[in-house]
């Protein structure tokens, strides 16, 4: 089940990004748009999804081997880039699953061109804002301080692994070359995220949500402390065909912390 994904590099042409796509599984296509942490390993929800679907997981420029962030100057460029990737992959009205940053991107794309997205699942997407429930500042904290906002249970393996990784950010001079490259790779990915979401991850999605036609599943971790689950209700109100599933004992990174019930809901929605 946890097969190694195939990795291909999509060249979208001169003056446009080059996109690394991870692919695994057979079955109907599922386009997976990753969150701000990228895809560090084929783990958590991903192998579960690829047991039922042909999963395509393109990486945004700055993540993995994807390059060309400079060609995406604003959010509009980013969303059009998403459609370019769909077209290059030869997908027709795919089932799109997006997590957090990727959920925002998927929602914006589905609002921009409703006819191009078949089904939609948004897992704790950013993109809305209420003063009474501010989204945690992803860019104004130390990495080890963020982890407790991302997981419900800090003792779970994924949370511990993330804490281990954040140790790299502390000032010390005994890093291995591999650790240095990991660190620089992470900062490159965060750069991409900051380009589109700094300083507040909201830029009008709410007034466009009504345009979404695809049947939309909103998934939220019941204990999400990064983005309050109250936002699920706003998505449900504003998207005509939306349903909400809340996953118990899950924080923001549902796919790493509670992959089974999350995958079950996504696979059910994709049928």
């Amino acid at each position, binding site marked *: 089940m946890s097969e190694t994904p195939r990795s291909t590099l999509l060249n979208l042409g001169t003056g446009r990004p080059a996109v690394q796509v991870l692919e695994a599984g057979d079955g109907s296509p599922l386009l997976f748009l990753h969150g701000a942490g990228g895809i560090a390993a084929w783990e958590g929800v991903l192998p579960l999804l690829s047991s039922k679907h042909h999963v395509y997981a393109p990486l945004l420029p700055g993540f993995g081997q994807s390059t060309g962030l400079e060609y995406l100057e604003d959010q509009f460029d980013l969303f059009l880039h998403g459609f370019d990737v769909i077209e290059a992959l030869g997908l027709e009205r795919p089932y799109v699953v997006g997590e957090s940053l990727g959920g925002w991107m998927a929602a914006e794309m589905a609002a921009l061109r409703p006819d191009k997205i078949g089904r939609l699942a948004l897992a704790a997407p950013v993109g809305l804002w209420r003063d009474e429930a501010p989204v945690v500042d992803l860019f*104004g904290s130390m990495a080890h301080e963020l982890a407790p906002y991302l997981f419900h249970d800090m003792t779970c393996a994924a949370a511990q692994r993330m804490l281990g990784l954040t140790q790299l950010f502390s*000032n010390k001079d005994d890093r291995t070359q591999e650790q240095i490259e990991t660190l620089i790779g992470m900062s490159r990915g965060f750069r991409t995220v*900051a380009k589109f979401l700094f*300083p507040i991850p909201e830029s009008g999605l709410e007034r466009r949500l009504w345009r979404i036609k695809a049947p939309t599943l909103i998934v939220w971790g019941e204990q999400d402390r990064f983005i309050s689950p109250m936002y699920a209700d706003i998505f449900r109100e504003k998207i005509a065909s939306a349903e909400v599933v809340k996953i118990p004992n899950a924080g923001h990174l549902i796919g790493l912390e509670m992959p089974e019930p999350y995958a079950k809901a996504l696979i059910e929605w994709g049928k």
Partner: protein
Amino acid sequence: MTPGLKNAAHEEIIMKFNWFHLMPYRWLPEDFRERYHGVWVDLPNSLYDPERGHTLYNEYLDMLEYADQSGFDAIGVNEHHQNGYGLMPSPNLMAAALARRTSNAMILVLGNSIALYNPPTRVAEEFAMLDVISGGRLIAGFPVGTPMDVNYCYGQNPVTLREKYREAHDLILKAWQAREPFAWNGKYTKLRYVNLWPQPIQKPHPPIWIPGTGSIETWDFCAELGYNYSYLSFSGYKRARKVLDGYWERMAALGKEPNPYSCTFFQQICVSDTDEACEREWWPHVNYFFNKCLHLYPGMMGPPGYMTEASVRAGVVAQAGNTSLNMGGNKSWKELVDGGYIIAGSPATVRQQVEELARSLRCGHLGVALHIGSAPMELTNRSTYLFANEVIPHVRSIWNDWEDHWWPKALPANKREQPGSHNAAVQARAERPTEVIA
């Protein structure tokens, strides 16, 4: 004005000293470090008392005016936002106040974070106003700005900040020099009509100084455009050696002459009658600065994209980041003095170290922070007095074989307006009794 001393006229080739103020708040509480994660960005402003602030601003402006009267070549202010040790969100307001109350010293605004102003022609206008009011005494600083100021307080995107900065710079420079209205179709600023009123006195424009913290990109920018590089560091001249060696190596590699006046360094300095008195008088205020004012929250020092990947890589490998450790926190007076974080002591001690500083860093301009932390008025002015009279005259001529291309071309002193003189000239006539026509 102190007898025997004078501010540097622009034609004189002497080392220049600018008296630089940060304007810290003086009453951060005792348990400040334990209760708050940093001095900047989100420090609650309930700690600020505006009535105390009234006294503080006026004392601080008085200190700067005294520096002018004492013969310092320039007096300097800078820009910070939401900051407990830098109470100048608008340095231009301070510079305007100084322009009207001084007439000798050059006025260094280091500077305006030009990517913050929309449109950036606002900076071109305000700097032009300052230059005209002051009779051409302005030195114009263009910092990119710290992450705390520009990204966290002013919401600029760290990834596009440098591109926006460069565009703002190009617009300001063109606005200062154009003699016809022009259209500016930039990526960040679009203006159909740019037509600056007033124009600066200095031609083609006031000297431009670029403050930086050691990145190669900034050195190259200064070299390309012929600007002064002002290295800002609170860790003192001994630790700056490595960075400025890098600067001079880079200038040599780019084929630039090693002109000391292309380089400014900032140093915190305390002068008292004796070394012993200096420690006794200054330690509480120095301690306040290094352990309260520099209590910075690392989570807001490096937003993603603020540095180029090359600089990130250099920083990770060389560990050149400004950690609280190398910024002088938790150090004794002796450690701070021995490490060069501060130059402190009797005039003779300070004289020797200032000379060592200038020669080892090869800087023709020295920014001296003679007010530190919570220092009160009399102590600061004593230090200013001793530095002006017993230090400056001995180290002035270190670099007299180089031409200073980075100093204002002010109007000659006898052509500069004296604030208030016009009222005086007409007072008798203006206040004459009502004339009754018979």
